[in-house]
């Protein structure tokens, strides 16, 4: 079995952003450019997450999805602020292959069933974003980490699968953007108890953290953001003038680095996983490239 390495791109307006614990979002660049780079260097899938979907209109995101789907030919999952079957249909029409739902599903779990009946289970990914409680259990949060629910993350995972979720993405909000590594206990507690694939997310600061998510966390796939983004930012030497005025681009001007992140390229990351005994899809042949 090949483990999937999935770059996650958080999007705010026209820009790719990255924060810590889902907050303090920094602008890193244009999502399409990162998407194309990751496609060309061996990404197995891509995830687009609209960080502020409930606050702004979604037209921006649909345009970005359309432009991306026109030039990349790997699965694209889109999430953030999808409220119902019609929202999901719109995103799929724009070219997404799967959708990720969290807030709306916790508010009305039947949405999972409706969406999986309408579009097929394999199209419906339920994103579980959790914070560790003092007693060691985990609580599911909604609204990009802003809203507590009182729902136990493990119970919710099982229920989501029963309702028809084809995959789960499990994100530790505590670890997100920190570079301290995935919350292995959170990932394992869900990945080892549900029959569907589980994608680990939140916290990777080194290639070894990614390896641990698979070997110790039992994840079937891994989501990676800062680890890859900061490398690409470093390598491509952006012209900050390229960005829309909005957003925090200070860090980009200064050459964004975050000391807790030992950035890697996708081929380096996959080489490390292979060394650790995890099989991955190999490098892409360049023939027939669009």
């Amino acid at each position, binding site marked *: 079995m090949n483990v999937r390495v999935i770059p996650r791109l958080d999007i705010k307006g026209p820009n790719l952003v990255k924060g810590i614990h889902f907050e303090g979002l920094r602008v890193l660049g244009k999502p399409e450019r990162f998407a194309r780079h990751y496609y060309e260097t061996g990404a197995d899938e891509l995830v687009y997450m609209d960080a502020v979907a409930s606050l702004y209109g979604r037209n921006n995101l649909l345009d970005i999805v359309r432009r991306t789907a026109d030039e990349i030919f790997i699965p694209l999952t889109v999430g953030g602020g999808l409220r119902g079957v019609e929202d999901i249909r719109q995103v799929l029409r724009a070219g997404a292959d799967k959708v990720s739902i969290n807030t709306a599903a916790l508010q009305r779990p039947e949405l999972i069933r409706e969406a999986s009946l309408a579009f097929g289970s394999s199209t419906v990914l339920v994103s579980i974003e959790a914070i560790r409680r003092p007693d060691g259990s985990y609580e599911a949060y909604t609204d990009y980490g802003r809203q507590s629910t009182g729902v136990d993350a493990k119970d919710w995972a099982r229920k989501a699968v029963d309702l028809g979720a084809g*995959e789960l993405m499990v994100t530790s909000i505590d670890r997100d953007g920190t570079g301290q590594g995935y919350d292995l206990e959170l990932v394992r507690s869900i990945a080892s108890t549900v029959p569907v694939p589980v994608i680990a997310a939140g916290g990777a600061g080194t290639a070894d953290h990614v390896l641990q998510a698979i070997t110790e966390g039992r994840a079937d796939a891994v989501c990676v953001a800062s680890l890859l983004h900061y490398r690409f930012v470093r390598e491509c030497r952006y012209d900050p003038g390229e960005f829309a005025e909005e957003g925090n681009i200070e860090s980009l001007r200064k050459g964004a680095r975050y000391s807790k992140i030992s950035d890697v390229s996708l081929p380096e990351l996959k080489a490390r996983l292979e060394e650790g005994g995890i099989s991955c899809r190999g490098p892409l042949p360049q023939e027939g490239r669009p």
Partner: protein
Amino acid sequence: MGRSPRVAIVDYGLGNLYSVSRACVHAGLDAVVTSDRQAVTSADGIVLPGVGAFGDAMATIRKLDLAEPLRDVVRQGTPLLGICLGVQLLMSRSEEFGDHEGLDLVKGTVVRLKDPREGERALKVPEVGWNGIHRPRRGSPGDPWVGSPLEGRSEGQSMYFVHSYCVQPEDPEVILSVTRYGQIEYCSGVRRGNLSAFQFHPERSGAAGLAIYGAWARLIRSRSHGEASA
């Protein structure tokens, strides 16, 4: 060269047909997403895509009155490309949620991926992700990929899969490729005459997948040419 071959992507209500359509365009095909019988039967090539449940898909195909017309045009030689659920629909029957009849264009059944394991570790069903395609071991001489949409692909090439079920054709000669998931080896590609069908999604399998659409487009062109000069 004349006009682009026109292909009909059969729309029976489920799934993302955008990427299938983009891949066809990339291969120089003039693609239309349609559930109209006339548009399907008059096309130079047909893509039977699919996401979702077998029973629902067959019910919709029958409701749209497409089952018999599809069988007819395939018998008349129109190239058909089945994808994911599309390969399963070609079979005689499926055991997914009960027992359902398929299009019966290829004798065989659709069965669940049963308890895949890798050593100690149970693998997940559905299988979601990249996996290799291999030539089947079979009696007849020659490379089965030559002259098929897999011509030019390398042995073990990774393709993108999302499925809980797989096909078991009765005639081993129609098996074009096999794939291993844990201890299970299943048929991931089928070819019989003008029928080509895959369990994976070539339109989501990067450059190697696009090359499959390219090779299929060449098959359509060579057939159209043959007719024109006949």
